[in-house]
């Protein structure tokens, strides 16, 4: 048993809104736990709201050693001012080494303000996290220059080391109903007045998260050459129980909606299988899909860089291969 469960640990900010679809907190608990083990520390999830006990228990079941929870009617809404006040107070009291949040809209609005109040460093929208055992430094890998480069960022002299992390990069741990962890409710302290009042809220129409959850993703690039051929990917995806993604040039060409964009400026997916057709292998795109367990590539050009990351590369023209593949699958599925 550790002397102090709270100090010196790795903290993950718990975002439970839209719980069944927004899994980034659970992904960060899993990754944070892995990093915590390397450093011999505890993984702590922190959650704020008006009634959060059920979420606190979920976080324990998904791997949190401790959950630090704050319940107050004034915390019901995700508000930058109130959340910053409470979390800054707790960070000063418990002194975590590392503090992580999902790079959701809220996370990316909340964490900069919190980092500034704590006078520490923050990296944005990380796509990889590692720790150095000897220094305890968190190496935060973040895309820059529109995804052309990955920068490895460290926060050497300030604590906590803060990062927001791109959703879908890490894999959550399975729900363990027998998991044991403790949930504590520290004093919240006074809350600041609300200066940003929510008047109305409605779901965004085109919001679609199915792509990130799909076990099979069929992705198309500009190499497909036509909207008609790109359209065949939908049937292929349907036959395989998956969903369709697209590269930036394919989205620009008007073959797919922005919501289907994969890569550093779009969605990161980690499907069991990714079939990528007519994609050359621009870094912009590949960083968003290389978490796939298996990658199958179809491309006319035997020298396409994308073949370098494919588990199976088929050198062929989509014009002939796709219809043949669809025929074969229609007979089988």
């Amino acid at each position, binding site marked *: 048993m550790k002397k102090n469960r709270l100090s010196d640990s790795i903290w993950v900010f718990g975002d439970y809104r839209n719980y069944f679809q927004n899994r980034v907190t659970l992904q960060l608990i899993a990754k944070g736990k892995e990093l915590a083990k390397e450093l011999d520390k505890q993984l702590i999830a922190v959650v704020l709201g008006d009634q959060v006990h059920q979420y606190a228990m979920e976080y324990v079941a998904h791997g949190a050693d401790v959950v630090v929870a704050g319940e107050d009617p004034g915390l019901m809404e995700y508000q930058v001012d109130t959340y910053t006040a409470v979390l800054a107070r707790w960070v000063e009291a418990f002194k975590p080494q590392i503090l992580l949040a999902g790079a959701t809209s809220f996370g*990316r609005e909340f964490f*900069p303000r919190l*980092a500034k109040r704590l006078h520490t*460093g*923050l990296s944005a929208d990380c796509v990889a996290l590692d720790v150095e055992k000897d220094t305890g430094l968190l190496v935060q890998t973040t895309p820059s220059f529109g995804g052309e480069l990955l920068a490895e960022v460290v926060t050497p002299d300030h604590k906590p080391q803060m990062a927001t992390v791109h959703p879908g990069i890490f894999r959550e741990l399975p729900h363990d109903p027998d998991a044991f962890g403790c949930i504590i409710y520290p004093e919240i302290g006074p809350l600041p007045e609300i200066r940003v009042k929510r008047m109305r809220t409605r779901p965004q129409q085109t919001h679609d998260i199915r792509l990130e959850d799909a076990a099979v993703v069929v992705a198309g690039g500009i190499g497909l050459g036509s909207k008609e051929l790109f359209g065949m990917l939908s049937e292929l995806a349907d036959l*395989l129980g998956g969903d369709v993604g697209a590269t930036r040039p394919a989205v620009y060409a008007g073959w797919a909606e922005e919501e289907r964009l994969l890569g550093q400026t779009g969605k990161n997916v980690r499907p069991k299988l990714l079939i990528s057709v007519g994609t050359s292998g621009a870094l912009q795109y590949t960083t968003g899909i290389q978490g796939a367990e298996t990658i199958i590539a179809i491309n006319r050009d035997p020298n396409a860089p994308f*073949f370098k990351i494919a588990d*199976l590369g088929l050198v062929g023209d989509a014009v002939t291969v796709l219809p043949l593949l669809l025929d074969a699958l229609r007979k089988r599925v």
Partner: protein
Amino acid sequence: MEIVVCIKQVPDVPTVRMDRERMTIIREGVESVINPLDYIALEAALELRQKAGGHVCIITMGPVQSEVALREALAVGADQAILLTDPDFAGADTLATSHVLARAIQKIEPFPDLILCGMQTTDSDTGHVGPQIAEELGLPQVCGVNEIHREGKFLVVKRLSDGFVDTVKVTLPTLLTVTKGLCPVRDLPLGALEAAFSTKDVLEWNMTDLDLKKEEVGFAGSATQVRRLRTPPPRGSGDIIEGPPDVLVGHLLRRLEALSILDEEDEKK
């Protein structure tokens, strides 16, 4: 309404190329532009000025060359431009950058009712500086705004946030970061840029003007350090098959079977 718009000069992304051997950005031949979302912030400020009166002041922190971006903002119609430049400002992360910008805004008289920033820049893409200025100045913030209406001492703004469209009411003074869809960006009137170079002045403030110390700014005042730049690690190359389409499809089907995505043909029969 007194409005301050924070802008940044960024490399024009389509012209950026990378030296893949040295892992650096090739600076030669790269054009600089006003960060696209900052341009939208500028347009929004001009539109608000048109309705509510007041002044629009543009500030930027950067090397002396950033003056061009300020001249362009003046040409579009801003009233005043301030360049925050000092050799010691170089190498700043968002913590140090927001400190310099916040200090400059405090020096502007009268203190603005509204501060506008683009939600993100195209180069480092953090989106941190806006909220961090708001924090240092003790102002409320709303990020990712795509609609602004003035209602007396309040602003009513719309923004997309995590799949929801929120309409919020915020007290002034405040800081907003803005995103696409807020207002169209107009073309620069012919000759306006030349006029902005010859007639309007750009104020220049350095570290001493802002009463800042070396350890608060630039690399020394930053909490984060970029340790290295890299490209993603390569995955191991798998089998590459060449042949007629039916052979390729055969390979694909067998792989789907191996992955249990497709039942094996014999079982099915």
